[in-house]
Protein backbone atom coordinates (compact mmCIF):
# COMPACT_ATOMS: atom_id res chain seq x y z
CA UNK A 1 0.00 0.00 0.00
CA UNK A 2 1.32 3.47 -0.86
CA UNK A 3 0.57 6.83 0.77
CA UNK A 4 -2.15 7.84 -1.73
CA UNK A 5 -4.03 4.62 -1.11
CA UNK A 6 -3.65 4.96 2.63
CA UNK A 7 -5.05 8.53 2.56
CA UNK A 8 -8.27 7.24 1.04
CA UNK A 9 -8.71 4.73 3.83
CA UNK A 10 -7.70 6.66 6.95
CA UNK A 11 -11.14 8.03 7.75
CA UNK A 12 -12.76 4.57 7.49
CA UNK A 13 -9.86 3.17 9.54
CA UNK A 14 -10.58 5.67 12.32
CA UNK A 15 -14.23 4.62 12.17
CA UNK A 16 -13.32 0.92 12.41
CA UNK A 17 -15.06 0.31 9.07
CA UNK A 18 -12.28 -1.31 7.05
CA UNK A 19 -12.43 -4.98 6.17
CA UNK A 20 -9.82 -7.14 7.84
CA UNK A 21 -7.49 -7.37 4.84
CA UNK A 22 -7.29 -3.61 4.26
CA UNK A 23 -7.11 -2.96 7.99
CA UNK A 24 -3.97 -5.11 8.23
CA UNK A 25 -2.45 -3.63 5.06
CA UNK A 26 -3.02 -0.12 6.35
CA UNK A 27 -1.54 -0.85 9.78
CA UNK A 28 1.54 -2.31 8.11
CA UNK A 29 1.89 0.89 6.07
CA UNK A 30 1.40 3.11 9.14
CA UNK A 31 4.19 1.32 10.99
CA UNK A 32 6.55 2.18 8.14
CA UNK A 33 5.37 5.71 7.32
CA UNK A 34 5.56 8.45 9.99
CA UNK A 35 3.82 11.03 7.76
CA UNK A 36 0.76 8.84 7.29
CA UNK A 37 0.79 7.90 10.96
CA UNK A 38 0.71 11.59 11.92
CA UNK A 39 -2.14 12.19 9.48
CA UNK A 40 -3.97 9.19 10.91
CA UNK A 41 -3.64 10.52 14.45
CA UNK A 42 -4.97 13.90 13.34
CA UNK A 43 -7.99 12.28 11.70
CA UNK A 44 -8.67 10.13 14.77
CA UNK A 45 -8.49 13.18 17.06
CA UNK A 46 -10.83 15.14 14.82
CA UNK A 47 -13.30 12.23 14.77
CA UNK A 48 -13.29 11.97 18.56
CA UNK A 49 -13.79 15.72 18.92
CA UNK A 50 -16.77 15.72 16.53
CA UNK A 51 -18.41 12.78 18.26
CA UNK A 52 -17.92 14.21 21.74
CA UNK A 53 -18.96 17.74 20.92
CA UNK A 54 -21.85 17.63 18.44
CA UNK A 55 -25.18 17.95 20.25
CA UNK A 56 -28.00 15.47 19.74
CA UNK A 57 -31.42 17.07 19.58
CA UNK A 58 -34.07 15.05 21.40
CA UNK A 59 -37.69 15.16 20.34
CA UNK A 60 -39.80 17.53 22.46
CA UNK A 61 -42.09 15.65 24.87
CA UNK A 62 -45.19 17.05 23.19
CA UNK A 63 -44.20 15.71 19.77
CA UNK A 64 -44.74 12.08 20.82
CA UNK A 65 -48.23 12.94 22.06
CA UNK A 66 -49.13 14.85 18.90
CA UNK A 67 -47.96 11.94 16.78
CA UNK A 68 -49.90 9.35 18.80
CA UNK A 69 -53.04 11.43 18.39
CA UNK A 70 -52.61 11.84 14.64
CA UNK A 71 -51.90 8.11 14.27
CA UNK A 72 -55.14 7.30 16.11
CA UNK A 73 -57.04 9.63 13.79
CA UNK A 74 -55.38 8.03 10.78
CA UNK A 75 -56.11 4.50 12.02
CA UNK A 76 -59.78 5.33 12.53
CA UNK A 77 -59.98 6.83 9.08
CA UNK A 78 -58.47 3.78 7.39
CA UNK A 79 -60.32 1.25 9.56
CA UNK A 80 -63.58 2.25 7.90
CA UNK A 81 -62.08 2.13 4.41
CA UNK A 82 -59.93 -0.89 3.89
CA UNK A 83 -58.41 -3.67 5.91
CA UNK A 84 -54.68 -3.26 6.36
CA UNK A 85 -52.60 -6.26 5.45
CA UNK A 86 -49.40 -6.89 7.26
CA UNK A 87 -47.16 -9.76 8.20
CA UNK A 88 -47.13 -11.07 11.74
CA UNK A 89 -44.07 -10.16 13.76
CA UNK A 90 -42.56 -13.63 13.71
CA UNK A 91 -42.42 -13.52 9.92
CA UNK A 92 -40.68 -10.14 9.80
CA UNK A 93 -37.58 -11.23 11.50
CA UNK A 94 -37.05 -13.95 8.93
CA UNK A 95 -36.98 -11.41 6.17
CA UNK A 96 -33.84 -9.37 6.61
CA UNK A 97 -32.87 -6.27 4.69
CA UNK A 98 -34.62 -3.02 3.99
CA UNK A 99 -38.09 -2.81 2.53
CA UNK A 100 -36.76 -2.31 -0.97
CA UNK A 101 -40.22 -1.65 -2.35
CA UNK A 102 -40.62 1.39 -0.13
CA UNK A 103 -37.19 2.86 -0.82
CA UNK A 104 -37.61 2.37 -4.55
CA UNK A 105 -41.08 3.89 -4.49
CA UNK A 106 -39.56 6.95 -2.82
CA UNK A 107 -36.67 6.99 -5.28
CA UNK A 108 -39.08 6.85 -8.19
CA UNK A 109 -40.62 10.09 -6.93
CA UNK A 110 -37.46 12.00 -7.76
CA UNK A 111 -37.25 13.71 -11.12
CA UNK A 112 -34.33 12.69 -13.25
CA UNK A 113 -32.54 14.82 -15.79
CA UNK A 114 -32.19 12.98 -19.06
CA UNK A 115 -32.16 9.50 -20.45
CA UNK A 116 -28.55 8.73 -19.69
CA UNK A 117 -28.95 10.19 -16.21
CA UNK A 118 -31.73 7.69 -15.64
CA UNK A 119 -29.65 4.87 -17.03
CA UNK A 120 -26.94 5.90 -14.59
CA UNK A 121 -29.43 5.97 -11.76
CA UNK A 122 -30.49 2.43 -12.71
CA UNK A 123 -26.85 1.40 -12.41
CA UNK A 124 -26.47 3.18 -9.06
CA UNK A 125 -29.57 1.47 -7.78
CA UNK A 126 -28.40 -1.92 -9.01
CA UNK A 127 -25.05 -1.41 -7.21
CA UNK A 128 -26.90 -0.56 -4.01
CA UNK A 129 -29.20 -3.59 -4.39
CA UNK A 130 -26.21 -5.80 -5.08
CA UNK A 131 -24.51 -4.49 -1.97
CA UNK A 132 -27.62 -5.00 0.12
CA UNK A 133 -27.97 -8.51 -1.23
CA UNK A 134 -24.54 -9.34 0.17
CA UNK A 135 -25.83 -8.75 3.69
CA UNK A 136 -26.67 -11.91 5.58
CA UNK A 137 -30.05 -13.42 4.87
CA UNK A 138 -31.01 -11.11 2.05
CA UNK A 139 -29.29 -12.82 -0.85
CA UNK A 140 -31.82 -15.45 -1.80
CA UNK A 141 -35.49 -16.23 -1.35
CA UNK A 142 -35.17 -19.49 -3.24
CA UNK A 143 -31.95 -21.41 -2.82
CA UNK A 144 -31.27 -23.91 -5.55
CA UNK A 145 -28.60 -24.78 -8.05
CA UNK A 146 -31.28 -26.27 -10.30
CA UNK A 147 -32.75 -23.89 -12.87
CA UNK A 148 -35.86 -26.09 -13.03
CA UNK A 149 -36.54 -25.14 -9.41
CA UNK A 150 -35.61 -21.46 -9.70
CA UNK A 151 -37.63 -20.67 -12.83
CA UNK A 152 -41.01 -22.02 -11.57
CA UNK A 153 -40.46 -20.24 -8.25
CA UNK A 154 -40.76 -16.91 -10.08
CA UNK A 155 -43.82 -18.03 -12.06
CA UNK A 156 -46.44 -17.08 -9.49
CA UNK A 157 -44.68 -13.87 -8.48
CA UNK A 158 -43.92 -12.06 -11.72
CA UNK A 159 -45.89 -11.15 -14.83
CA UNK A 160 -42.91 -12.11 -16.98
CA UNK A 161 -40.67 -15.14 -17.16
CA UNK A 162 -36.94 -14.54 -16.62
CA UNK A 163 -34.76 -16.91 -18.64
CA UNK A 164 -32.73 -18.94 -16.14
CA UNK A 165 -29.54 -20.58 -17.38
CA UNK A 166 -26.93 -22.68 -15.66
CA UNK A 167 -23.32 -21.68 -16.26
CA UNK A 168 -21.71 -24.08 -13.80
CA UNK A 169 -19.69 -25.69 -16.61
CA UNK A 170 -17.75 -22.44 -17.15
CA UNK A 171 -17.37 -21.68 -13.44
CA UNK A 172 -20.50 -19.64 -12.67
CA UNK A 173 -22.88 -21.98 -10.84
CA UNK A 174 -26.44 -20.83 -10.24
CA UNK A 175 -27.14 -20.31 -6.53
CA UNK A 176 -30.75 -19.13 -6.39
CA UNK A 177 -33.02 -16.16 -6.89
CA UNK A 178 -35.09 -13.54 -5.14
CA UNK A 179 -37.58 -10.78 -5.82
CA UNK A 180 -36.12 -7.29 -6.10
CA UNK A 181 -36.91 -3.82 -7.41
CA UNK A 182 -35.13 -1.80 -10.10
CA UNK A 183 -36.19 1.64 -11.33
CA UNK A 184 -39.61 1.22 -9.72
CA UNK A 185 -40.24 -2.10 -11.49
CA UNK A 186 -40.50 -5.50 -9.90
CA UNK A 187 -37.42 -7.44 -10.96
CA UNK A 188 -36.17 -10.98 -10.71
CA UNK A 189 -32.69 -11.21 -9.23
CA UNK A 190 -30.83 -14.37 -10.25
CA UNK A 191 -27.85 -15.17 -8.07
CA UNK A 192 -24.72 -16.82 -9.46
CA UNK A 193 -21.43 -17.64 -7.81
CA UNK A 194 -17.88 -17.09 -8.95
CA UNK A 195 -15.78 -18.86 -6.34
CA UNK A 196 -16.50 -16.83 -3.17
CA UNK A 197 -18.02 -13.92 -5.08
CA UNK A 198 -21.59 -13.20 -6.03
CA UNK A 199 -23.14 -12.08 -9.29
CA UNK A 200 -26.65 -10.64 -9.27
CA UNK A 201 -28.50 -10.63 -12.59
CA UNK A 202 -31.48 -8.29 -12.41
CA UNK A 203 -34.21 -8.96 -14.98
CA UNK A 204 -37.22 -6.70 -15.55
CA UNK A 205 -39.61 -5.92 -18.41
CA UNK A 206 -38.27 -3.43 -20.98
CA UNK A 207 -41.69 -1.84 -21.64
CA UNK A 208 -41.94 1.70 -20.16
CA UNK A 209 -38.51 1.24 -18.56
CA UNK A 210 -35.25 2.94 -19.54
CA UNK A 211 -32.68 0.54 -20.99
CA UNK A 212 -29.95 -0.48 -18.56
CA UNK A 213 -26.44 0.97 -19.08
CA UNK A 214 -24.27 -1.28 -21.27
CA UNK A 215 -21.49 -0.94 -18.75
CA UNK A 216 -20.87 0.93 -15.52
CA UNK A 217 -18.56 0.69 -12.57
CA UNK A 218 -18.40 2.13 -9.10
CA UNK A 219 -16.41 1.50 -5.92
CA UNK A 220 -15.05 -1.82 -7.08
CA UNK A 221 -18.34 -3.08 -8.49
CA UNK A 222 -18.99 -3.40 -12.19
CA UNK A 223 -22.18 -3.84 -14.15
CA UNK A 224 -23.12 -4.83 -17.71
CA UNK A 225 -26.57 -4.48 -19.17
CA UNK A 226 -28.45 -5.57 -22.26
CA UNK A 227 -31.98 -5.97 -23.60
CA UNK A 228 -33.31 -9.18 -25.13
CA UNK A 229 -36.79 -10.52 -25.86
CA UNK A 230 -38.57 -7.56 -24.25
CA UNK A 231 -36.58 -7.86 -21.03
CA UNK A 232 -33.84 -5.69 -19.52
CA UNK A 233 -30.86 -7.48 -18.00
CA UNK A 234 -28.24 -6.00 -15.69
CA UNK A 235 -25.45 -8.17 -14.25
CA UNK A 236 -23.66 -6.70 -11.21
CA UNK A 237 -20.69 -8.05 -9.34
CA UNK A 238 -17.42 -7.34 -7.59
CA UNK A 239 -15.52 -9.81 -9.82
CA UNK A 240 -13.07 -8.37 -12.40
CA UNK A 241 -14.78 -6.73 -15.40
CA UNK A 242 -13.21 -9.25 -17.79
CA UNK A 243 -14.75 -12.16 -15.86
CA UNK A 244 -18.11 -10.42 -15.84
CA UNK A 245 -17.84 -9.92 -19.60
CA UNK A 246 -17.23 -13.64 -20.08
CA UNK A 247 -20.25 -14.40 -17.88
CA UNK A 248 -22.50 -11.96 -19.75
CA UNK A 249 -21.34 -13.21 -23.18
CA UNK A 250 -22.19 -16.79 -22.29
CA UNK A 251 -25.46 -15.79 -20.61
CA UNK A 252 -26.53 -14.02 -23.82
CA UNK A 253 -25.49 -17.02 -25.97
CA UNK A 254 -27.56 -19.43 -24.01
CA UNK A 255 -30.68 -17.30 -23.84
CA UNK A 256 -30.87 -16.39 -27.52
Amino acid sequence: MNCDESHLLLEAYADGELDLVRHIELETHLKACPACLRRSEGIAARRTRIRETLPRFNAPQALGETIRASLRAEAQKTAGQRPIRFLVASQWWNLAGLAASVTVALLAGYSWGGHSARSNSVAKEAFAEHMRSLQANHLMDVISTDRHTVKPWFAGKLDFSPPVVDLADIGFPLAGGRMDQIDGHTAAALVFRRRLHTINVFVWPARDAVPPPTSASESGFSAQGWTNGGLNFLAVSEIPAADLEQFVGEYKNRTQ
Partner: protein
Amino acid sequence: MEASAPTEMSTFEQLMLPHLDSAYNLSRWLLRNPHDAEDAVQEACLRAFRSFSGFRGADGRAWFLTIVRNVCYSHLRHGKREFPKVAFEEDLHGSPQDSGETNAQCWLEAKGDLLRQALERLPAEYREVIVLHDVEGLSYREIAGVAEIPLGTVMSRLARGRGKLQTEIVTLSESTSP
Protein backbone atom coordinates in the same frame (compact mmCIF):
# COMPACT_ATOMS: atom_id res chain seq x y z
CA MET B 1 -52.98 -12.24 7.49
CA GLU B 2 -55.42 -9.44 8.22
CA ALA B 3 -55.10 -7.30 11.29
CA SER B 4 -57.38 -4.76 12.81
CA ALA B 5 -56.20 -1.16 12.61
CA PRO B 6 -55.80 -0.73 16.42
CA THR B 7 -53.48 -3.78 16.58
CA GLU B 8 -51.48 -2.46 13.65
CA MET B 9 -51.25 0.91 15.33
CA SER B 10 -49.90 -0.50 18.57
CA THR B 11 -47.37 -2.63 16.67
CA PHE B 12 -46.30 0.46 14.76
CA GLU B 13 -45.98 2.47 17.97
CA GLN B 14 -43.93 -0.25 19.63
CA LEU B 15 -41.55 -0.60 16.70
CA MET B 16 -41.20 2.99 15.47
CA LEU B 17 -41.80 5.43 18.31
CA PRO B 18 -38.66 4.36 20.23
CA HIS B 19 -36.78 5.92 17.30
CA LEU B 20 -38.51 9.28 17.60
CA ASP B 21 -35.41 10.96 19.05
CA SER B 22 -33.25 9.67 16.18
CA ALA B 23 -35.87 10.82 13.68
CA TYR B 24 -36.12 14.28 15.26
CA ASN B 25 -32.35 14.66 15.52
CA LEU B 26 -31.84 13.89 11.82
CA SER B 27 -34.70 16.16 10.85
CA ARG B 28 -33.50 18.97 13.11
CA TRP B 29 -30.00 18.84 11.61
CA LEU B 30 -31.24 18.64 8.02
CA LEU B 31 -33.83 21.42 8.29
CA ARG B 32 -31.90 23.52 10.87
CA ASN B 33 -35.06 24.70 12.57
CA PRO B 34 -37.11 23.11 15.40
CA HIS B 35 -40.55 23.87 13.95
CA ASP B 36 -39.81 22.47 10.50
CA ALA B 37 -38.15 19.48 12.15
CA GLU B 38 -41.29 18.68 14.15
CA ASP B 39 -43.51 19.05 11.08
CA ALA B 40 -41.28 16.76 9.04
CA VAL B 41 -41.15 14.06 11.72
CA GLN B 42 -44.92 14.14 12.07
CA GLU B 43 -45.38 13.87 8.32
CA ALA B 44 -42.82 11.05 8.14
CA CYS B 45 -44.66 9.16 10.91
CA LEU B 46 -47.91 9.28 8.98
CA ARG B 47 -46.20 8.22 5.76
CA ALA B 48 -44.44 5.39 7.59
CA PHE B 49 -47.72 4.28 9.14
CA ARG B 50 -49.47 4.26 5.75
CA SER B 51 -46.75 2.16 4.17
CA PHE B 52 -46.16 0.04 7.27
CA SER B 53 -47.65 -3.00 5.52
CA GLY B 54 -44.64 -2.81 3.16
CA PHE B 55 -42.16 -2.90 6.06
CA ARG B 56 -40.55 -6.33 6.15
CA GLY B 57 -37.10 -5.49 7.40
CA ALA B 58 -35.60 -6.25 10.76
CA ASP B 59 -34.23 -2.74 11.16
CA GLY B 60 -37.08 -0.42 12.05
CA ARG B 61 -34.81 2.54 12.76
CA ALA B 62 -33.15 2.48 9.33
CA TRP B 63 -36.51 2.12 7.61
CA PHE B 64 -38.02 4.99 9.58
CA LEU B 65 -34.97 7.24 9.06
CA THR B 66 -35.13 6.63 5.29
CA ILE B 67 -38.64 8.04 5.26
CA VAL B 68 -37.69 10.95 7.54
CA ARG B 69 -34.80 11.79 5.25
CA ASN B 70 -36.99 11.77 2.14
CA VAL B 71 -39.56 14.05 3.78
CA CYS B 72 -36.78 16.45 4.85
CA TYR B 73 -35.31 16.55 1.35
CA SER B 74 -38.66 17.39 -0.18
CA HIS B 75 -39.00 20.20 2.39
CA LEU B 76 -35.52 21.42 1.44
CA ARG B 77 -36.33 21.32 -2.27
CA HIS B 78 -39.57 23.22 -1.90
CA GLY B 79 -38.44 25.62 0.82
CA LYS B 80 -36.69 28.91 0.16
CA ARG B 81 -34.45 28.68 3.17
CA GLU B 82 -30.90 29.97 3.32
CA PHE B 83 -28.48 28.13 1.09
CA PRO B 84 -25.52 26.32 2.52
CA LYS B 85 -22.33 28.34 2.56
CA VAL B 86 -20.18 25.54 1.19
CA ALA B 87 -20.81 24.11 -2.27
CA PHE B 88 -21.57 20.43 -2.56
CA GLU B 89 -19.40 18.65 -5.12
CA GLU B 90 -19.46 14.92 -5.23
CA ASP B 91 -16.09 13.34 -5.77
CA LEU B 92 -16.26 9.58 -5.82
CA HIS B 93 -12.73 8.85 -6.83
CA GLY B 94 -10.54 11.70 -5.74
CA SER B 95 -8.79 11.77 -2.42
CA PRO B 96 -10.16 13.88 0.39
CA GLN B 97 -8.23 17.13 0.20
CA ASP B 98 -7.60 17.65 3.87
CA SER B 99 -4.91 16.17 6.00
CA GLY B 100 -6.68 16.14 9.34
CA GLU B 101 -3.58 17.51 10.96
CA THR B 102 -3.83 21.17 10.06
CA ASN B 103 -4.80 23.53 12.82
CA ALA B 104 -4.99 20.84 15.45
CA GLN B 105 -5.22 23.65 17.98
CA CYS B 106 -8.53 24.91 16.62
CA TRP B 107 -10.10 21.55 17.41
CA LEU B 108 -9.08 21.71 21.02
CA GLU B 109 -10.59 25.14 21.33
CA ALA B 110 -13.71 24.46 19.27
CA LYS B 111 -16.71 24.85 21.52
CA GLY B 112 -19.87 22.90 20.89
CA ASP B 113 -21.63 25.98 19.60
CA LEU B 114 -18.94 26.73 17.03
CA LEU B 115 -19.04 23.12 15.82
CA ARG B 116 -22.83 23.28 15.51
CA GLN B 117 -22.65 26.50 13.47
CA ALA B 118 -19.97 25.03 11.24
CA LEU B 119 -21.98 21.87 10.58
CA GLU B 120 -25.09 23.89 9.76
CA ARG B 121 -23.13 25.67 7.01
CA LEU B 122 -22.33 22.42 5.20
CA PRO B 123 -24.57 21.08 2.40
CA ALA B 124 -27.22 18.59 3.51
CA GLU B 125 -25.39 15.71 1.80
CA TYR B 126 -22.42 16.09 4.14
CA ARG B 127 -24.51 17.05 7.17
CA GLU B 128 -26.57 13.89 7.00
CA VAL B 129 -23.65 11.43 6.86
CA ILE B 130 -21.91 13.19 9.76
CA VAL B 131 -25.09 13.26 11.85
CA LEU B 132 -26.02 9.67 11.06
CA HIS B 133 -22.53 8.38 11.79
CA ASP B 134 -21.11 10.62 14.49
CA VAL B 135 -24.27 11.50 16.40
CA GLU B 136 -26.62 8.58 15.74
CA GLY B 137 -23.89 5.96 15.54
CA LEU B 138 -25.07 4.24 12.34
CA SER B 139 -22.57 2.07 10.48
CA TYR B 140 -21.47 2.91 6.92
CA ARG B 141 -23.69 0.12 5.64
CA GLU B 142 -26.74 1.40 7.53
CA ILE B 143 -26.10 4.91 6.19
CA ALA B 144 -25.85 3.54 2.64
CA GLY B 145 -29.34 2.11 3.13
CA VAL B 146 -30.85 5.23 4.69
CA ALA B 147 -29.31 7.75 2.26
CA GLU B 148 -29.66 5.38 -0.73
CA ILE B 149 -26.05 5.81 -1.79
CA PRO B 150 -23.31 3.22 -2.34
CA LEU B 151 -20.98 2.27 0.51
CA GLY B 152 -18.00 3.92 -1.21
CA THR B 153 -19.92 7.19 -1.41
CA VAL B 154 -20.68 7.04 2.33
CA MET B 155 -16.95 6.69 2.96
CA SER B 156 -15.93 9.56 0.66
CA ARG B 157 -18.73 11.89 1.82
CA LEU B 158 -17.87 11.34 5.45
CA ALA B 159 -14.17 12.02 4.81
CA ARG B 160 -14.86 15.14 2.75
CA GLY B 161 -17.59 16.31 5.10
CA ARG B 162 -15.33 16.15 8.14
CA GLY B 163 -12.61 17.96 6.19
CA LYS B 164 -15.01 20.72 5.18
CA LEU B 165 -16.27 20.93 8.75
CA GLN B 166 -12.72 21.59 9.87
CA THR B 167 -12.27 24.31 7.22
CA GLU B 168 -15.50 25.96 8.36
CA ILE B 169 -14.37 25.95 11.98
CA VAL B 170 -11.14 27.69 11.02
CA THR B 171 -13.09 30.29 9.01
CA LEU B 172 -15.60 30.87 11.79
CA SER B 173 -13.03 31.15 14.55
CA GLU B 174 -10.96 33.58 12.46
CA SER B 175 -14.00 35.77 11.79
CA THR B 176 -15.04 35.88 15.47
CA SER B 177 -11.61 36.44 16.98
CA PRO B 178 -10.55 40.10 17.28
